[in-house]
């Protein structure tokens, strides 16, 4: 079954909730956060116009989890199938990035994989990208093209539901009675909405035109003073990395329970001063500027070299979460301008 039409979201979400737990965006203050869906609830599910505040990684790589029990290993709890509704194109890309790390051949993380295999991804178009969104700079779009099981697009008087995987297709097939035919006019409407969102994004990022690929800008700015300058206001809150949907540093620690020992795995941040420190006290990234450089190099150069994809999706969460006013777009822009100035100088010298 190809794209289908449904006039209300509730029957769709209820149908998904028949066979699995569903997490759906709900407005919390000015942001959206995912909450467990209650099919018996009276409220109509709401579609988020912009990505949720918290990153999709929390469904696959939770803040804290049990990594091992010993001396007697126990089999981990079976993960039940679950659905996440309202994922955006940037979220789907972030999952693709995490897959590279946690599903890497010979080094598969069993906990990630168990969740990944059971996640039913229901994405949706961005109807109102935020001021901090900059996915378009990194070749992203405000609507998903792949990586989802179902994608939902808001159109006049209803929603278009597009399957993106065999799982999504069989869902639509099994619930065919819920859906109607899709008039061509609605497909055209969807395209129009998508274009409007794209225009809005371009408008929001007009102050950040880059003259070279971001990876090149960062790599060639490796020795730039921009990192130290921009890190000057950083208060090391680490919110940028924790809320980042692609940052995946973690910390392993051991605990003692009554009759067993456990190894725990918890999110960590490369912006933390002790992150790279060794027991003898040596620390290759003592200064905040060094850590900011490492964070950007990892995102745009090192990760790309290893996995062929940037480790940033331009969701702008780090910008919203920052306490210390460090804006990744500004850092990139300043590096870009330095590079441009260097280039112009070189041209001048040559002529």
């Amino acid at each position, binding site marked *: 079954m190809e794209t289908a039409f449904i006039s209300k979201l509730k029957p769709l979400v209820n149908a998904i909730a028949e066979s699995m737990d569903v997490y759906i965006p709900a407005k919390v203050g000015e942001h959206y956060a995912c909450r467990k869906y209650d099919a018996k609830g009276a409220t109509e599910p709401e579609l988020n116009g912009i990505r949720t505040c918290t990153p999709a990684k929390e469904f696959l790589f939770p803040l804290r989890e049990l990594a091992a029990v010993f*001396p007697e290993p126990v089999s981990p709890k079976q993960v039940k199938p679950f659905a996440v509704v309202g994922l955006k194109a940037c979220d789907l890309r972030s999952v693709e990035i995490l897959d590279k790390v946690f599903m890497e051949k010979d080094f598969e993380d069993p906990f990630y994989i168990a969740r990944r295999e059971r996640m039913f991804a229901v994405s949706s178009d961005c109807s109102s990208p935020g001021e901090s969104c900059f996915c378009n700079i990194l070749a992203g779009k405000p609507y998903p093209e792949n990586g989802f099981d179902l994608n939902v697009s808001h159109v006049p008087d209803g929603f278009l539901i597009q399957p993106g995987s065999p799982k999504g297709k069989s869902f639509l097939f099994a619930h065919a009675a819920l859906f109607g035919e899709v008039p061509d006019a609605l497909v055209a409407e969807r395209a129009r909405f998508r274009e409007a969102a794209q225009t809005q994004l371009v408008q929001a990022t007009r102050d950040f035109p880059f003259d070279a690929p971001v990876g090149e800008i960062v790599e060639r700015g490796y020795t730039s003073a921009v990192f130290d300058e921009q890190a000057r206001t950083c208060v090391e809150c680490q919110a940028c990395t924790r809320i980042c949907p692609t940052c995946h540093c973690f910390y*392993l620690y*051991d605990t003692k329970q009554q009759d067993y020992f456990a190894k725990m795995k918890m999110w960590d941040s490369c912006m933390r001063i002790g992150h*790279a420190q*060794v*027991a003898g006290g*040596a620390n290759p990234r003592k200064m905040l500027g060094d850590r900011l450089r490492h964070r950007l190099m990892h995102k745009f150069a090192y990760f790309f070299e290893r996995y062929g994809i940037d480790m940033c999706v331009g969701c702008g969460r780090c910008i919203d979460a920052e306490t210390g006013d460090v804006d990744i777009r500004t850092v990139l822009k300043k590096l870009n301008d330095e590079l441009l100035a260097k280039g112009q100088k070189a041209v001048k010298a040559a002529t």
Partner: protein
Amino acid sequence: MTRNLYQPMNAEIAETIEESPTIKSFVIVPDTQFKFGTGQFVELTLPGEGEAPFTPSSSPAMAEKMEITIMKAGRITGLLHECGKGRRVGLRGPYGNGYPVDEFAGKHVYIVGGGVGLAPIRSLFLTLVDRIGDFKSVVCRFGAKTPDDFIYKKTLFGDWQRLKGVEMKLTVDKANGNWDGHVGVVTTILDRKDVDIASAVAVVCGPPVMMKFVTVSLLNFGFDPKRIYLSMEKNMSCGFGKCGHCMLGKYYVCKDGPVFTYEQICKYPNIWE
């Protein structure tokens, strides 16, 4: 379910050996056989307390047990030093690349070590000695702060000095007792004539400041940066290139290292910190 990367294998401390005032060796017997390559490292868990990375100091040819030499440097190593025979521990690994011993074949192997850096070097040394005919020579230059600070004293001052195909010189920063050997930091016993540099590889392991100055000396002697092998000490935590703590530029020291050529890492700042 896929094999759990985080699950330690159970093991037991079979013996502890005092090496120096701050360094102890632990003979560890894993419950099931555990194979490693020389220069690879393991994560040793002290149950309920934490884990830390160590490169075994024994020969990989010894399958039923391994030795790990540990300097008291932080919380976990401090607690490990209090552990005695019979203490149950956990082991994960082996991780990393280890020394490319086969690439050393047909060459002089120039080994420079200092302090507890002799631990990984001992494993390499024993591996080389097992097939000594494969190498032009094995030339060792080892240093310690004082004679008491040398580890593996019995073999270092004894058998190892008399092995065929091996040439060894020792030095201390500060002499005491009956020491009648050389006094001075390890770079003072390095000489460009020690080996034929054109057909040699160098292996360096020790405290970061020592590695830095030894590398400078080796480069001055004319060593190719591609042939200087450095064992890097970083904060290796997961062991398989995910947790991010040990990143050195683009490399995960735990997965791409811990042995790097100087050429691989020289462009990054603060490699010795």
